[in-house]
């Protein structure tokens, strides 16, 4: 078969399937936060990528500490939590200072948050320097394990997958199984009513936005295992994130998951058979065309206005 033994082909199929999956979990992590902010609140947060970077830098910073007081083995867990907290707080503040004044003007949030992303990038640059930095990874995150000879499963890939799973599940539980989530959904669907039944909608907005940012932070932390961190790292992810959310049908969490999966598989396959950059173009093209035919996205229910 193409001059390769069946076993080789088999191995590749396995590993290819896996790289598809890990891309899927990367996209999912990127998009989840946005799905909440954009999907639920309708805020176009162009600084989403920068919140990821915040998480990444937090991790890097902690790793420096870890090396100093050597707890390299265990620090990564703390790093993720820290990343969440830092990004969460930052998001909370940003919402208070900026976003809340713009809820009625979605297009303007887009522009304002883009300005915000510029500022944040420069802050990163002047605090952490222009050069890309990398987190010191614990041994257990490096290398790969081999079920059989010829198959390597990257451990960091598995890790990111696991994380994506955890985050997704907890987001789901929060949104659909907790009072907090109920408040959020209530507020987003009918602000006035929610207010009338005694929900502090302003507070809900703030927490929801901060939550989205926090998740972005976690994503950022996770990405330090895959790529490095620089002031402009965030801008690499922003468009992809939006594509995933919009493609999935902004309001639906299921949609986000599904579209992340679809896009990931498509891209990793296309990139296997085409050159990498053309693969990316092809993927984006497909998304855009589908979106033109089905603007409301894949999973938007037909509703009676």
């Amino acid at each position, binding site marked *: 078969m193409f001059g390769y033994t069946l076993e080789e082909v088999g191995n590749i199929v396995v590993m290819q399937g896996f790289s598809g999956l890990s891309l899927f979990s990367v996209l999912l992590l990127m998009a989840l936060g946005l799905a909440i902010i954009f999907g639920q609140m309708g805020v176009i947060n162009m600084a989403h990528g920068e919140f990821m970077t915040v998480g990444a830098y937090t991790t890097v910073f902690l790793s420096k500490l870890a090396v100093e007081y050597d707890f390299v083995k265990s620090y990564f867990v703390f790093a993720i939590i820290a990343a969440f907290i830092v990004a969460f707080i930052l998001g909370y503040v940003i919402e208070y200072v900026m976003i809340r004044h713009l809820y009625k003007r979605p297009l303007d949030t887009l522009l304002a948050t883009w300005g915000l992303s510029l500022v944040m990038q420069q802050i990163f640059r002047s605090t952490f320097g222009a050069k890309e930095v990398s987190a010191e990874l614990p041994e257990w995150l490096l290398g790969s394990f081999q079920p059989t000879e010829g198959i390597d499963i990257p451990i960091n890939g598995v890790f990111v997958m696991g994380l994506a799973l955890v985050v997704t599940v907890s987001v789901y539980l929060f949104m659909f199984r907790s009072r907090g989530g109920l408040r959020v959904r209530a507020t987003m669907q009918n602000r006035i009513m929610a207010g009338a039944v005694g929900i502090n909608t302003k507070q809900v907005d703030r927490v929801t936005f901060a939550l989205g940012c926090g998740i972005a932070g976690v994503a950022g932390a996770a990405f330090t295992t895959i790529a490095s961190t620089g002031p402009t790292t965030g801008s690499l992810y922003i468009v992809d994130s939006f594509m995933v959310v919009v493609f999935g049908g902004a309001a639906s969490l299921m949609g986000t998951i599904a579209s992340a999966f679809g896009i990931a598989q498509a891209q990793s396959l296309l990139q296997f058979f085409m050159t990498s950059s053309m693969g990316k173009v092809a993927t*984006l093209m497909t998304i855009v065309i589908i*979106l033109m035919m089905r603007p409301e996205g894949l999973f938007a229910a037909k509703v009676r206005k």
Partner: protein
Amino acid sequence: MNVLSEKVLGGKQGALHLAILAVLLLVILPLCLDLFRLGLIGKYVTYAFVAISLVLLWGNGGILSLGQGMFFGLGGYCMAMFLKLEASDPISTKIQTTPGLPDFMDWNQIVELPWFWEPFKSLPLTLLLVLVVPVLLAFIIGMAMFTRRVGGVYFSIITQAIALILSILIVGQQGYTGGVNGITDLKTLSGWDIRTDSAKYCLYFMNAGLLILCIMLSRFILTSKFGMLLLAMRDKEERVRFSGYDVARFKIFIFCVAAMISAIGGAMFTLQIGFMSPSFVGIVPSIEMVIFAAVGGRMSLIGAVYGTLLVNFGKTIFSETYPELWLFLMGGLFIAVVMFFPDGLAGIYEKYAPHCSFSMLRARWLKKVPKVTGERQ
């Protein structure tokens, strides 16, 4: 006939502000500035074309396109392709494996001119394509989106994605496009050396003149019933539709006009700066252009021009003295404008220059900040 002129100039007010702008661009600046600075202004003015197009599209139409850079870029590339072909005549490219080809093609082992380069051997055809290519793209995008009622945020995000696709394509297909480097080292326009000082002056005035014309064209559109409908669509699209108008067509049309205006800017950019690069097609420039319009005032044609000039001048000055601060300033400015002055400079002027005799004085005196009303009465 004078009805028409009235429309084009946008009433007494409009005429005055247009005149001030014209004097500023065509007389004062050329007199005050040395050729280098004037060249910079020329470059900014090419961006102003895009800003104007955004006033039509976004300010009045409520359609925020984050892909205007595409059209600017396409216009620029069409022009650049012509100039490149002229620059790479067999003699000056004799060092190559296949002389007569643009250098970057030669580097990518391309031995004959790709078919889509052929038309750019003739100037008239090129000038036509400078307008047609972007408009065609705009038409296709518009058709696909507006007839399916893709609007608001979704339109913005999709146009952004398309801009991204286009830039990856241009970079990826460097054999045909010059890749990241873009199309560089352009020398002459059918024999006329565009790098000489005299040529630079010439192009500057041509550029400024074209800008004024584009403003007039936009004025004409905005003061017509079409303009009123644009506003109406922005506020109550449904109502317009149920007043018997085919909303999609109107949107497609204005999108195409905007694309065309941006493309003119792009072409003029190529002529003045002497090259075109994919860094204009991508997302960042597209959004920056929106800033320019926002700062000047998304509703005001002339405001947008001043906005563009000011922001870019600031950019140049600042990045010369302290580059670090620049991004803070740019970002901060953008946040501030969006949050506190949604109508930009024009809005501020509106607010603080109440009765117009005084405001005329101000305008004449400051050579700045225009007035919006009067453009649409």
